[in-house]
């Protein structure tokens, strides 16, 4: 296989973004180009995943042929390849949704370039093997996401973007400080080299400081409970195709980061980090579920529900057994598809409302004459609540089984007690939009956003629910890979 393969998922969207910037006068060509490059990038990451999985070795590319600890390394191990495929699949669906989106901001010349640079930043941050390079890609992702929200039709978009960007800059400062602490202690920022050196001398005084700062960065990126306050505002005000990306795949960067922290970088301190993750994750599951019930806006409800789902993922990462890590991967993958689909459906219904809004007050009863989005929302809601025959059930089953195997009954009790909350808020949203009588004179507008993208995603949820074995096998392989970080280190440093 061509050694440049791990670069393609990063370079293709970046080149597409640059090319789309040139097509100022032709919006259709811009959209086509964006979708084509994103599909090509997805294809490249699928090939990459197949290659990595079948050979059983990470694919490593050294930029500029500088050997590992000195240059920038792109590493596609199984975790990175899996998450890259997940992100790019959902990003493709987002572009399909944007194709028929009625928002004015989609026709902004900067929309597609920014969308593609969001994809570049996210994929790059996942595939890079260097801590400082991760900072650069994360900044690219943050600034693209904030700019996409700032150009939203919703006039609160700029306020939300400002709020998010402030907090992201502060989180980036935490990451830079962590880079400094690690560099002064170990003299390297290459993840593999760091892992090796930290294992050799785990008693440097600045190491705990670096761990805490890195946790602050990744937990802010994932909107985990004490760092979550920007997230519902930001995800609600963003344009629908963008908010479907933000709340599904962009928040997964933090999940990726804590997975790398506990299984590669800080294996010695992993027990402490895991205890923190279980506590924060459990708090997130309860808090996210309760606040989602108390919201007045469908998109906001789904944004709060992300807090709960990320909480469940963190609890699984905190258990730390290979089976629990596999469950975390399954939930991560499934949640991206489900949440993107549900946010798109909420946006599609809002686009048919007389005043474009996803507030329950504006869309109550609107769905009575829109049966197709209702059916899709019901299926997506079942997946979110973890009911068969959807992929949500598979993830939840894997999670609970791994918890019983790891004998973590306290956290399991919290998860079990909080899981009916999901059912409550999904059922409540469904009831308000598709069952209740509409206000007098409320009829859906003609036109509106098409349902191709959410239908594709919900279809994928059903397929992965009925034919779950490929994803489960992939997740199990991921769990085994993560249990042996030495392979990653050897592949990068070639020792």
């Amino acid at each position, binding site marked *: 296989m061509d050694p440049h393969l791990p670069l393609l998922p990063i370079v293709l969207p970046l080149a597409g973004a640059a090319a789309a910037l040139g097509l100022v006068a032709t919006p259709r060509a811009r959209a086509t180009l964006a979708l084509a490059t994103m599909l090509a990038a997805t294809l490249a990451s699928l090939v990459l995943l197949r290659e990595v999985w079948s050979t059983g070795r990470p694919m490593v590319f050294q930029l500029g042929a500088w050997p590992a600890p000195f240059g920038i390394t792109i590493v596609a191990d199984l975790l990175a390849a899996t998450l890259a495929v997940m992100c790019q699949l959902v990003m493709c669906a987002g572009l399909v949704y944007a194709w028929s989106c009625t928002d004015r901001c989609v026709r902004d010349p900067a929309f597609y370039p920014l969308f593609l640079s969001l994809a570049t930043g996210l994929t790059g941050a996942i595939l890079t093997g260097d801590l*400082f390079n991760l*900072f*650069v890609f994360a*900044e690219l992702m943050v*600034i693209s996401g*904030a*700019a996409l929200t*700032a150009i939203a039709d919703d*006039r*609160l978009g*700029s*306020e*939300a*973007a*400002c*709020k998010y*960007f*402030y907090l992201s*800059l*502060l989180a*980036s*400062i935490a990451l*830079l*400080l962590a*880079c*400094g*602490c690690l*560099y*002064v202690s170990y*003299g390297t920022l290459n993840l593999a080299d760091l892992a090796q050196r930290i294992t050799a001398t785990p008693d440097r005084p600045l190491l705990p400081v670096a761990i805490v700062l890195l946790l602050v960065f990744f937990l802010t990126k994932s909107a985990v409970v004490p760092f979550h306050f920007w997230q519902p*505002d930001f995800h*609600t*005000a963003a344009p629908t195709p963008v908010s479907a990306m933000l709340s599904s795949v962009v928040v997964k960067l933090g999940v990726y980061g804590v997975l790398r922290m506990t299984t590669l970088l800080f294996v010695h301190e992993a027990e402490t980090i895991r205890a923190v993750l279980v506590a924060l994750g459990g708090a997130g599951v309860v808090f996210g579920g309760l606040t989602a019930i108390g*919201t*007045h*806006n469908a998109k*906001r409800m789904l944004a709060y529900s992300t807090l709960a789902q990320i909480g469940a993922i963190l609890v699984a990462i905190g258990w730390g057994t290979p089976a629990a890590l596999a469950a975390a991967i399954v939930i991560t993958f499934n949640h991206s598809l489900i949440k993107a689909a549900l946010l798109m459906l909420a946006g599609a219904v809002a686009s048919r409302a007389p005043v474009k809004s996803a507030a329950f007050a504006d869309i109550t009863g609107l769905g009575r004459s829109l049966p197709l989005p209702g059916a899709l929302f019901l299926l997506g809601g079942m997946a979110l609540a973890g009911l068969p025959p959807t992929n949500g059930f598979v993830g939840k089953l894997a999670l609970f089984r791994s918890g019983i195997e790891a004998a973590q009954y306290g956290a399991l009790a919290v998860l079990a007690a909080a899981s009916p909350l999901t059912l409550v808020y999904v059922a409540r949203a469904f009831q308000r939009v598709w069952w209740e009588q509409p206000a007098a004179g409320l009829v859906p507008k003609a036109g509106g956003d098409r349902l191709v993208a959410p239908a594709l995603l919900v279809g994928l949820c059903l397929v992965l629910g009925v034919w779950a074995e490929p994803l489960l096998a992939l997740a199990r392989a991921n769990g085994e890979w993560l249990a042996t970080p030495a392979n990653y280190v050897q592949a990068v440093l070639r020792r």
Partner: protein
Amino acid sequence: MPYLMALAIGTMFGIGIFLVLRRNLLRSAIGLVILSNAVNLFLLCCGAYDGVTPAYTTAPGPRADALPQALILTAIVISMGGLAFVLALLGVLAHRERTADADAMRGLRH
């Protein structure tokens, strides 16, 4: 010298954090500028060698570590872009809301 540097960076962090916590968004943006510069100085001090001459030259004297300098250059460029974006957003917000008080911008509180 290291103590003076540590004291200066600490003071900058203090000023930056104090300003970021102001209610006036413009002051808090200035706080962000000071914080990102404090981080750059911190990175500079993380270099491996306390050198005075550039790396990869034949000049005599202890070499400086080139990597933190490269990191700082990147961080400066990124933080400049980010701060320009924040200031532009603040300009739009302050113009629209006729205030720079963070507590007065309540549009997102449902």
